């Protein structure tokens, strides 16, 4: 218990210094609101956005995009990852290409995706799928292909069918690793939706930020940033807490 208290205190030192510096800079200093608004201004902007329902609306739009894209990428990522993990030929065929494509940052895909899919809903979902697909695929592949030979031999000994071998040996072995992929994928889809909305959108939390920027509303920009960070952490923790349900054999 003591270590937790200590850790929390230590972890808070720098944030508190930053907040104090922010406070000091905006009360004593002479910084225009358009650059760095005071803490109270930001708080006020937050309250206004909540009261008008704008913040919730923006988040709902962004989150529903994430859900759509994320679910698609889970399906594609796990299925393809499992296929590549099970079959040497599939791996030799696809993995080099995947490795190359992965090097292109998701942001760099956005222009092309917009050219192809427009600036509507589809392009956002495609961008999210692109972002979450690779971590899920790569981790699934890893978990499947690293199933120890000793367990595969047991399946071979009892002449399990391909499918049974997959569901009873490969898949359970891969689950912890797949969950890691799902966690990474969720993080990247959240980042991707914000990026996509910043660049081309008429709704969502990212759009709100770029809109606020053009209105010189740094307070709104900061509120959005903080909320994005917070939601990211909450999603990560929520997903993490579900993990033990999928791996009952671990203590």
């Amino acid at each position, binding site marked *: 218990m003591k270590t937790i208290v200590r850790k929390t205190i230590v972890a808070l030192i720098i944030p508190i210094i930053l907040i104090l510096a922010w406070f000091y800079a905006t009360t004593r200093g002479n910084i225009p609101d358009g650059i760095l608004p005071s803490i109270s201004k930001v708080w006020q902007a937050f309250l206004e956005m909540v009261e008008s329902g704008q913040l919730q609306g923006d988040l709902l739009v962004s989150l529903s995009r994430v859900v759509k894209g994320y679910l698609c990428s889970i399906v594609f990522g796990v299925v393809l990852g499992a296929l590549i993990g099970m079959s040497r030929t599939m791996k030799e065929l696809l993995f080099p290409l995947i490795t190359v494509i992965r090097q292109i940052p998701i942001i760099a895909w956005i222009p092309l995706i917009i050219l192809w899919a427009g600036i509507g809903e589809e392009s956002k979902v495609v961008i999210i799928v692109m972002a979450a697909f690779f971590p899920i695929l790569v981790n699934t592949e890893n978990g499947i292909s690293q199933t120890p030979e*000793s367990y595969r*031999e047991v399946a071979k000994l009892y*002449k399990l069918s391909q499918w049974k071998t997959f569901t009873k*040996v490969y898949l359970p072995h891969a689950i912890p690793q797949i969950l890691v992929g799902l966690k990474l994928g969720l993080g990247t889809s959240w980042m991707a939706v914000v990026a996509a909305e910043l660049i081309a959108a008429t709704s969502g939390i990212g759009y709100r930020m770029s809109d606020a920027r053009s209105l010189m509303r740094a307070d709104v920009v900061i509120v959005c940033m903080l909320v994005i960070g917070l939601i990211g952490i909450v999603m990560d923790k929520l997903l993490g807490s579900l993990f033990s349900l999928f791996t*009952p*054999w671990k203590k």
Partner: protein
Amino acid sequence: MSKEKDYIIKVEHLNKHFISGGNDIEVLRDINLQIKHGEFVTIVGHSGCGKSTLLKIMCGLVSYEDGVVERNGHAVDGPGPRCGMVFQEHRLLPWLKIKDNVGFGLKGLPKEQREALVKEHLELVGLKGFENSYPHQLSGGMSQRAAIARGLANNPTILLLDEPFGALDALTRIQMQKEITRIQREQGTTMVMVTHDIDEAIVLGDRIVVMSARPGQIKDIITVETRGQGHMRNSDEFTYYKKKIYGYLFEDAQEEQYEVEYMI
């Protein structure tokens, strides 16, 4: 040639090499061994001499290039349902409960029958009440016993055991030795057991296969005349067999030592 049918396993002139990291390792050299129905054969030999490999070849998990390996008169080309194997490591699947591990090889049976078989075999190895535990909740010896239960559950005609009692304490070990003898008598299961315990090899074996260090060759096959007579462990005969086996293995140990010195 009518005698051919008596053999459940026939190995003739078997050689086995592994290619590992570009090196060609000769593991087994000219193995000849016939195992009769209902027999209990034990195998002893130095670590790395190819005992596990030999068992895996017999059950079809490892391929072979040269020689003849037959099970029930047919060349072995893969695992068969009536040939069971208990691996050197227990190899229980960590994500399956003990009951599902034990029932792992039971296919196409109605649920009740499957459960009954699992229960019966868990009781047999003294693991009643652990049906719903996961492997990590069991001790090493208990895991090994669960693995034995899995090997026996689908009623094999031949069971290959690779140091199955290696993780057991002396007491449980003797209990399990009795148990396996009983099972073998009652069910007539043919058993081939690799062990590093020479006493165990003598107590359990109708015949003892003594192997040389790598490349594994059969040095001798000793027939134990008085097997199963209870007083075995302190009889003169027992001591005689023990000395004989130690003699064979000690020869190797000296050679090995020499080899090591040479390498340094």
